[in-house]
């Protein structure tokens, strides 16, 4: 048990976000969310759909890292040219992503930080598909570094819809807004507090609520039955290893720490 890594614990926690989601496209962007989506499909939720990261739907999740171009076995086709019709605007998708900032309303930012729309201090990617994703289908998040630069009181540019009452346009249909889980290197959170307040539902082994709160730029709620995030099973570890044969996940968390902290 001592050789179980924190990143594998995070992957299992992320995969739980997809449990029982049904026949929808599970999109994990980045190594941890992607392996997590594959793990969910290969264990508890086989009905999930997913792509090879390009344009084909696969029933066998493709592993991370170098492999032959034709190693994927396409079972279907979901190119970007059909993506909004088939997956996003139909609500048949659950994406897990890592934006640059997330605020107390679950609003996210990946466009720019500081400065103005006309002259940003730091230009990032642009809003990509996040405005549409967040108003149409469920979303979850993974952050490898839980800190106040990520969890901010108010994001600089609202690139994804959250639960901010001030951003509710009268007559708008926000029924598709569905923020599910936030997994970090410290804990698992959801939006189940009062008025969708972000709350801690489990702490990773050895982490305290106070430590999480201190690393967060806004007030967190604490779930009544807050647990310790469970360790991966042997079966889950084997599936994770098969989905990441080159151990790319070892570089996601600083120093690739163990799941259970050494006693101080």
């Amino acid at each position, binding site marked *: 048990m001592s050789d179980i890594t924190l990143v594998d614990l995070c992957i299992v926690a992320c995969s739980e976000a997809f449990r029982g989601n049904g026949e929808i496209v599970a999109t994990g962007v980045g190594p941890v969310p992607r392996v997590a989506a594959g793990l969910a499909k290969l264990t508890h939720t086989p009905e999930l759909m997913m792509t090879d990261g390009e344009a084909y739907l696969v029933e066998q999740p493709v592993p991370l890292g170098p492999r032959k171009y034709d190693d994927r076995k396409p079972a279907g086709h979901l190119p970007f040219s059909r993506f909004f019709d088939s997956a996003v605007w139909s609500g048949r998708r659950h994406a897990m992503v890592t934006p640059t900032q997330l605020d107390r309303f679950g609003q996210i930012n990946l*466009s720019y930080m500081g400065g103005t729309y006309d002259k*940003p201090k730091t230009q990032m990617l642009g809003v990509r598909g996040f405005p*549409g994703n967040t108003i149409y289908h469920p979303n979850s998040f993974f952050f490898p570094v839980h800190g106040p630069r990520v969890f901010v009181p108010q994001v600089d540019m609202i690139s994804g819809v959250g639960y901010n009452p001030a951003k509710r346009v009268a*007559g*708008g249909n926000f029924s598709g*807004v569905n923020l599910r889980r936030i997994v970090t290197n410290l804990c698992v959170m959801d939006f189940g507090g009062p008025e969708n307040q972000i709350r801690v539902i489990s702490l990773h082994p050895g982490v305290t609520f106070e430590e999480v709160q201190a690393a967060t730029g806004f007030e967190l709620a604490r779930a009544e039955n807050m647990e310790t995030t469970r360790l991966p099973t042997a079966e889950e570890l084997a599936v994770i290893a098969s989905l990441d044969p080159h151990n790319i996940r070892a570089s996601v968390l600083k120093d690739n720490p163990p799941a259970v902290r050494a006693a101080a």
Partner: protein
Amino acid sequence: MSLDKRMSAAEIVAQLSDGMTLGIGGWGPRRKPMALVREILRSDLKDLTVVAYGGADVGMLCAAGKVRKLVFAFVSLDAIPLEPWFRKSRESGALEVLELDEGMFQWGLKAAAFGLPFLPTRVGLGTDLAELGGLKTVQSPYDDAETLIAMPALKLDAALIHVNRSDWRGNVQVFGPDTYYDEWFAKAAAKTYVSCEELVDRMEDHYPEGAQDNLFERCFVSGVVEMPCGAHPSSMPPHYGWDMKAFKAYADSARDPGDWAQVASRFVGASEAEYLESIGGKEAVAALSLPIF
């Protein structure tokens, strides 16, 4: 009218004029009509409004000061997530922008294609996009009375698209895993110019079995030029993958020396023939393996 739509790249660029709204097909580092973009970079064309799912096409045009306004949802080289020349332009305040969601963007192209002033969408509500971009709302006239964003038509004066094959009449064949929104760039534009990997005489004599790859009909094509390797350094499946080494050199040059005038000749070349030779010729491009995701 003559159905022979063959032109040189220089003749295509001569059809464009200062201040035009120009759509560029492809997606990030994929299927970009880079040879035509390089031809623009060799010209004195300026003050463009560029509409693109951006990659190095946008980065280079921004770096060269060709862009007055940019309509975008992202600008990225995938493995190099942040396009450095685009960032420089943005952070210097040199660009007017309209930032859109990826889905709204194609919705705007579709509105233009159908001659509509706008198409309604939920996308954008609850974010900063509408306010920052001056997008207005409409109310459904039906019982639901839903408030929706009116995504304005993205009308293009011209579009540039790189395709796999074409004949001289503009019968194109566009294939590979994903053709992104090239169809809608073609239909949103008053004139669409395509470069192709392979130009054939009469498509029906050469590749009749590929007719289902005719992504948009020839009435949407105004000019055709054969430009093998014309997407380099972006990918053009199944012919070749992206050239990440070239992208990296291009990205690094944004830091050092950080001055486009000093490096333009390297990434643009005095002519397309010279450019191709500088990157090792067609054989080197054909050897670029397709990206694995």
